[in-house]
């Protein structure tokens, strides 16, 4: 506690507060605007922080990272454009809520859930870091393979469609993930001799294509009068979640926070994985699973909290061991190194004011984000009042900016359009596209882990059940698969 007070003492200066605000403000902005990612923004800002004092620099850069997780919800809810892979899930129910006139509630619950997750996550960083950090070391390739498989199976099993169709979509995502350089030898695979495909399919063009572009086609199919969106209540704060929505969200927020934080600590697809798992979990636990996909508030509250808690969790291995869990925390590591500081136990011991200052800034930053985001919601939902004739071109151009800036050339745009048609086609036939994205993200990780494990064990598959952790997860995979494939009742053919 006195350490935390030391941290607040460090941060409660006008200059530090300003840097913190600048960071979270930038994070919100780049979360909302397409084409700006936290990775690129932080890399561009990093040289400017060379001359800054180290804690100010880190406080600002961290603010960008956790700020993005707040802003990323907006385009998913309002336009079904996932700003990043971890907000794909929000597109499912968040967008349907918006179409039912509850856009404000969706954004509101996302912001409040994010605030709760961010604050609790920071609390967990302050008090649980050292034991959690050891979790990272417990996961070798074999354990990781089994964890990813268990997650993928669970999400497939809890999907709304039949398990065979969900498995087909998972297979499609895994296959798409195989395109590009082999994770071990960098040899191009399934690229059909095209240099454009030799680097693999960009997640942004896949996600925006399957979700954003396909929705444009659906929007055009609906006749204009069906598109009347119920305007949010005009009174002040009328956009906020209703009492009933808030009550339904409490459990999902709490569970999403715990789940997201634990998965965020582990390296790899943390936030994406956590958001999907949270969605699957909430659908399983819900008394109204049929509402999922048609605008269930739980389907926004859980994943959005998981996503933010995952961001907080990713700080644990970085601050406690100097081990970045993903590409963005790797930039933060470089930001430390540039100032001659190597994060880890030594930093916590010798420069406690730096470590606790960063922690304190996260509490304040999350508070600033809540204050910043709630009023913004009232403004953002106005977007839905724009007539389709003008909104559709804007959405398409935003997709263009997002995809082109991510892939750096037009091949990504062509792919994105192709995925748009594919997504439209599959949605018409009632396939679950979320699984495609999750399998696409996890596929390369699973493959690499499998091959790493087999390299370590000289081809002996026993390694996958050797450690207790791997064995436990393997049993979980077997149980889920058996439960899913067990014929519960003779297949019913709907008329």
């Amino acid at each position, binding site marked *: 506690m006195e350490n935390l007070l030391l941290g607040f003492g460090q941060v409660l200066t006008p200059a530090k507060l300003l840097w913190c605000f600048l960071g979270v403000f930038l994070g919100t902005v780049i979360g909302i605007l397409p084409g700006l990612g936290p*990775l*690129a923004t*932080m*890399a*561009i800002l*990093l*040289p400017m922080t*060379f001359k800054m004092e180290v804690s100010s620099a880190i406080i600002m850069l961290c603010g960008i990272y956790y700020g993005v997780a707040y802003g990323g919800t907006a385009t998913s809810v309002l336009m079904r454009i996932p700003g990043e892979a971890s907000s794909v899930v929000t597109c499912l129910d968040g967008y349907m809520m918006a179409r039912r006139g509850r856009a404000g509630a969706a954004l509101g619950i996302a912001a409040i859930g994010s605030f709760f997750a961010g604050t609790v996550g920071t609390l967990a960083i302050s008090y649980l870091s050292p034991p959690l950090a050891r979790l*990272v*070391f*417990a*996961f*070798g*390739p074999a354990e990781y393979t089994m964890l990813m498989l268990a997650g993928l199976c669970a999400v497939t099993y809890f999907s709304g469609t039949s398990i065979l169709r969900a498995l087909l979509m998972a297979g499609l995502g895994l296959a798409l993930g195989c395109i590009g*350089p082999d*994770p*071990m*030898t*960098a*040899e*191009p695979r399934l690229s059909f001799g095209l*240099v*454009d495909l*030799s*680097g*693999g399919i960009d997640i942004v063009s896949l996600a925006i294509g399957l979700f954003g572009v396909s929705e444009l086609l659906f929007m055009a199919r609906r006749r204009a009068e069906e598109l009347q969106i119920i305007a949010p209540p005009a009174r002040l704060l009328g956009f906020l979640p209703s009492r009933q929505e808030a009550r339904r969200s409490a459990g999902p927020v709490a569970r999403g926070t715990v789940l997201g934080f634990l998965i965020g600590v582990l*390296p*790899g697809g943390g936030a994406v994985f956590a958001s999907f798992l949270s969605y699957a979990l909430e659908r399983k636990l819900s008394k109204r699973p049929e509402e999922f996909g048609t605008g269930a508030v739980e389907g926004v509250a859980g994943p959005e909290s998981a996503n933010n808690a995952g961001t907080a969790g990713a700080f644990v*291995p970085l601050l406690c*061991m*100097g*081990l*970045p*869990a*993903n*590409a*963005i925390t*790797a*930039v933060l*590591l*470089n930001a430390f*190194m*540039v*100032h*001659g500081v*190597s*994060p*880890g*136990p*030594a930093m916590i011991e010798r420069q406690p004011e730096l470590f606790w200052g960063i922690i304190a800034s996260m509490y304040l930053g999350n508070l600033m984000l809540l204050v910043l985001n709630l009023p913004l919601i009232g403004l953002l939902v106005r977007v839905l009042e724009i007539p389709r004739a003008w909104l559709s071109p804007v959405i398409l151009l935003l997709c263009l900016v997002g995809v082109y800036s991510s892939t*750096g*050339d037009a091949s990504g745009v062509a792919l994105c359009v192709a995925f748009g048609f594919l997504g439209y086609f599959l949605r018409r036939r009632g396939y679950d596209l979320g699984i495609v994205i999750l399998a696409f993200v996890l596929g*390369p*990780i699973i493959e*690499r882990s499998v091959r*790493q494990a087999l*390299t*370590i064990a*000289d081809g002996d598959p026993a390694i996958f059940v050797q450690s207790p952790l791997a064995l436990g997860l393997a049993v979980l995979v077997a149980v889920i698969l058996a439960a899913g494939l067990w014929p519960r009742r003779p297949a019913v053919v709907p008329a």
Partner: protein
Amino acid sequence: MSRRRLLLGAAAAGGALALPRLAAAADAFPNREITVIMPTAPGGGADVSLRGVLAPMGRILGVPMVVRNIANPTLATAQIASARPDGYTIGLLGMTALLLMPRLMSVPYKTEDFAFLGGFAEVLYGLGMKAGGPASSVEELIALAKTRRVTCSSNVIVNQLAMIQLGNRAGVKFHWVPTNAQAEAVAQVAGGHVDAVVQSPPEMTPLIRSGQIRFLASACNNRWPSFPEVKTLREMGYEAANFVPLGLACPTATSEAIREKLSAALAQAATDPETQTTITNLGGWPRPMTPEQIRTDMLGQEPMITAALEEAGMRRR
């Protein structure tokens, strides 16, 4: 509709012609921003070092230097090769794209397509093992590899070249476990899943300092400035080292006058003391190189890479 589009096209072409672009001779260079293609995702050690060099370089040239990250080395390098040779698009040439990928696939560029502009740093590499593990020196590691299977993790095969050389010299084999990220390679060793690791200072230093990784030897040409007591493999008597120079290049067709301007600015920026501190802190070895130097340094490694890869069983399909 089509007429309108034609008109638009004509307007676009007219706008371009109206500007005195064609008259932009070498003495007017540069009069707009220079795009620098970087073949990795933003934020890595090499990327941040590059940005550290580009800042003073832009001040010297008087125009902004804009980094464009294309995280597919082959595609990025192909774009450098096919860029308009006017000096406004240059890029960082990586070992992977230049020397390794052509051995694995047909690439739309060859080494003659690039004119080097000079270099600014070498990347540092180190060999580490789990502290308290089965070996605590390079000799013990080699001895261990004679008795059982020894694995070594790193995120790209370029890092592994020193281990392939070391194994070839000592008559043992280190089995490469490739990882997705730099830090993951280190974590696998600290967690006891993999035996050894070859990575760079940013991801290794924190775990060396906290006593979880034992730093056995520097796996490049120089000792690490932060750990001056740890010898290089070469100093220990093993002819094995990763040698990755970082430098810029442009298409060969770029006029000599423009190339000289860029080279001079790069040379000056690479000697800037602040830039050198940045590079050192990021785990690099600041080293200004002339275009000829970096060309020899990079292309001179081709026979070694060919031999090492062939010995390891990697070949072009």
